[in-house]
């Protein structure tokens, strides 16, 4: 178990900034995700942790040891690559045993030890019996497990996962998600998980770092990021949101009142910022919007006209026109809706977040 700390990391490719002043700490035994759209620098960050790249500015610490310039083969991290990177000319057994053979002297292992450890690792990922297959004879999910076993068998200080599930089909991905989480829990291994899939990140991680264009946007638990986003990017990237710009008209005990742009509507919400500027953005997630009137006194009720609706199975997604603005809401899938219907809504103030507009 290792604590990993990144301190002001920047990485340039020519004049392009891949990672721009990123700092965060991954706690011992934590499942930590780095989340962001493609090209945001998340893989580069992971490669810096693994030692495949060196940051141009900043330092990397494992526990309190500075490893910024330590070669990858001396860091004892174990990475699972997006494409698994299994050596096609070695069997499953040989692939998994490779790291142990390199450590044979160092760890004072006998051949019997190695054999036992490989078998254990394969058992852990439920691949026993496939030792003599070659990677190309395995399915995508199985290859994925071999890659995982190969990484786990060397007892690494940290497990690094680079979009490990992205090459699997949707159903298998959800299965593997659960399995991965259980495995990590039982091994209690510091894990850094890179992904562009917000569902994956939220469901697996203890904490998430959101990256955009090389910059760190926010670090926090999934709940923090989801319910208290600190910027528009995080609000927009995680889940779905109605985002309106507006002006603060009043501040009260724990709440602010905002008049939305292009509308007479005034809503109340909470803000994680102490000094909120006048120009703000209001984030209203569709699933917090209640149908009908009533509730807290502070909640705002509005009426809207159904402009567009889609049945998508577990719910109905509808877009309402409220004056000049438009709002996405979720309705129960049994709700019989017609275009032009008038709908009454309540906007619960505690779940509405107000942040400075960028």
């Amino acid at each position, binding site marked *: 178990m290792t604590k990993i700390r990144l301190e002001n990391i920047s990485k340039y490719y020519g004049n392009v900034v891949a990672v721009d002043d990123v700092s965060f700490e991954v706690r011992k035994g934590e499942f930590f995700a780095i989340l962001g759209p493609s090209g945001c620098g998340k893989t580069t960050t992971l490669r810096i942790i693994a030692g495949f790249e060196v940051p141009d*500015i900043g330092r990397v610490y494992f526990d309190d040891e500075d490893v910024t310039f330590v070669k990858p083969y001396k*860091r004892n991290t174990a990475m699972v690559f997006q494409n698994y990177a299994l050596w096609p000319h070695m069997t499953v057994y040989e692939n998994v045993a490779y790291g142990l053979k390199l450590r044979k002297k160092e760890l004072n292992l006998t051949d019997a030890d190695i054999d036992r450890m490989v078998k254990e690792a394969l058992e852990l990922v439920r691949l026993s019996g496939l030792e003599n297959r070659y990677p190309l004879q395995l399915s995508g999910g199985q290859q994925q497990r071999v890659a995982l076993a190969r990484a786990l068998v060397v007892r690494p200080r940290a497990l690094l996962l680079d979009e490990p599930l992205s090459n699997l089909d949707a159903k298998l991905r959800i299965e593997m998600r659960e399995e991965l989480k259980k495995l990590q829990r039982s091994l209690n291994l510091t894990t850094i998980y890179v992904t562009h899939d917000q569902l994956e990140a939220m469901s697996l991680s203890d904490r998430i770092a959101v990256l955009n264009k090389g910059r760190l946007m926010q670090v926090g638990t999934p709940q923090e990021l989801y319910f208290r986003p600190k910027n528009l990017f995080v609000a927009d990237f995680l889940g779905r949101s109605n985002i309106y710009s507006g002006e603060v008209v009043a501040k009260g005990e724990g709440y602010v009142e905002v008049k939305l742009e292009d509308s007479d509507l005034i809503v109340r919400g909470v803000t994680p910022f102490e000094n909120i500027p006048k120009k703000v953005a209001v984030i209203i997630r569709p699933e917090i919007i209640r149908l009908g009137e009533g509730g807290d006194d502070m909640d705002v009720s509005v009426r809207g006209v159904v402009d567009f609706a889609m049945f998508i199975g577990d719910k109905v997604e509808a877009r309402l026109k409220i004056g000049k603005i438009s709002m996405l809401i979720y309705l129960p899938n049994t709700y019989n809706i017609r275009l032009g219907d008038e709908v009454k809504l309540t906007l619960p103030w505690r779940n509405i977040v107000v942040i400075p507009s960028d």
Partner: protein
Amino acid sequence: MNITRLWVGSLRREDLTLFGTGTALLLASLLINALQPLEISKVVSYALMLLGFTVGSVMVVKGLYRYDYIRYSFTLSFLSVITLLYLFLTLLIEAYGVPQAFAVFLTPLAGASIVGYLHGKLREKGGMLKVGSLRKPDLRRRLRATLYQLDTTMWFFLLFGFLYLTVFMVLPILLVLTYSFTPPAGGGWWSNFYNVLRTVSYVNLNPIVKEWWSVVNLPNGQRLLVVRGVDYGPIINSLIVASVVTVFATALGIVVAFVLARYKFPGHTLLRVLALMPLFNTPFINSFVVKLIWGQDGPISSLIELIFGYKLRLEGYVGVILTQIITFFPIVYLNAYNSFLNVDPSTEEQAENLGAKGFKLFRSVTLPLALPGIAAGAILVFVFSLEDLGAPIVFNAQNLMSYRIFRGFQTATGLISPEIAALGVILLMITLVSFLAIRNYVSMRSYAMISRGGRLSPRVRCPGPLGLLAIYLAVFPVILFAILPQLGVILISLDVLKPYPTATGLDIRIPENPFMYLTKVLSDSTIYSYLLNTFTYAGISVLIAVFLATAVGYSVSRLKIKWLANVLDSLATSPLAIPGLVIALGYYYFFYILANALSYVFPGIYADLSPGPTFKTWVVFIIAFSVRRLPYVVRSVFAGFQQVHENLEEAAMNLGATRIKVVFGVIFPLIVGYILSGALLGFIYMATEVTTSVTFGGMNSAYAPMTYYMAQNIVGAAGQGPMLVAAMGTILIMIQLVVVIIVVYVFKQRYAFIGV
């Protein structure tokens, strides 16, 4: 918004090209008629060029000739490259009359190209600066981050690659350059170049014989048409020969490749195999066979006589051109064939879907997508033609740059004349500049590979009856003509075909002992020693080349210090663009100096290393083979490294393997097929190496390789000479056949020539 701008704005690219061509013709004809008789003075011509240059710049500023066009329209990007080369040369040789008039016309385009290029570069720079962040790492940190990638293995690879190539390639060439500036007594530092570029013996724009053919009345009353070409001196001759060869070889290569890549017809496989035959290298003897077939008493001559009443003989430059077209077109064919296969079928289907078909489809989608590969092949043909010695020696076409340099070796008393070095430098400039220009162009437009993902089974269809007729009546006969030399070599070696025609035509008979010459070549200890020399040198050189290729290929594919990787890559590829004769010249000076320098320390070594009759030339051959054929080995090994995803290496490193363990433990077993293919191909190209072999072979024949023997015995062409050479040719064909079969069927590699 004025009216001109509006009009230009509405102009389409096709119109612009058409407009340009039209103006070109008009202007050129005007200039020719108006200026030629007046013999315009230097001042006027320079003034005209300056004017053209200004016009070009104005065109760019006004947006009439955009940099983007140079980049993205293939008509103009080629044009700008060729324009610049042409202008450079006409200036150097002080061309007048038609060539100069044409040069004057081209200047605006050249100006526009240069200005546009610079403009674009500047804009790129400006755009990039904006992206840069506020925080900049300090230099020491950057250096440390850079050095981080260089572990012991990487250092060793880089040092070995750079050292070997610098010492045995860059240094010798620098020596040629140095010697080219050594003036003759009383001359200025430039006088060698002045002599080579401005005197009649090198550049003769006004030859006495202006007809490229003549009719001779033979004693027996027959009339003979002799086609030989006009002699403008070695520089212009070489350029004409190389350009004509490139154009025809490219056209032929494209047609054959397209037919084979896109049509299915009975005899398809046969044609594919036949089209590869001319690539089998049989130095000297193939030219000899071409000369025989197209000679006075050959079958072509008889056929022409039957139809037109003239006998026909190809001689000199025309003979060289024909031989080289036949020899080199498969290079373009192979590249074009692979390029056509690589064109994503869906891009063509999309074009068809939008209404393009037939030639329009080919011209607007297929050809542009395949063009980078074709251009890469064409430029190789250009370079190969310029440096070829076989055909010029056999056809006795002495006024070619390659032959002149070769003569420089033969007639040298003491050190080779610096004038020859100057000629070598000019030859090198021409090949290097064209090669780099095309390389730049190819790398800029290699998008054929970009669109992946779709199915890549090429679209094959059956030709219509007319197409079928064209294939059987045009393509097949052309290919058959092209393989006649190889066929002839085998027939001569088996004593079926006599190398000396009788008055009634070729002398063909059933031999009594068909394997006589093959046996003699392999059993006669004198002749066999040449073969043994060749295979020993090639064997050792291949080992060096494979190691060098591994070092270079690995560094280039993995190094993230881009400029360093690029320099090494260019160094390792450049032997393709460096004429063998220039390398030979370089080694000549190199060893001359080395022997002198070393003899202070080891007095005995002078005789062993100094060019002369006691020179232990095997050193030169081993080094020359390994450097000259390195690109083929590198290409194959590099392809192997590229095939291996970097993650496979990183996965091993991540688990604790050092780089040396990764390269030799994990990667090598994966790409062993690529390495062996590279080694085998390198071996056959080394075995058939001509230039250093014939130039240095003559110094000390005990160490000479077989190509030297072939050259010696083909020139006099007496007695059994040609038969024995043909036997050697047949042995070479066999070896090459085996290699190709192994490479294609055992290692499953594509046998291709995309060297750029």
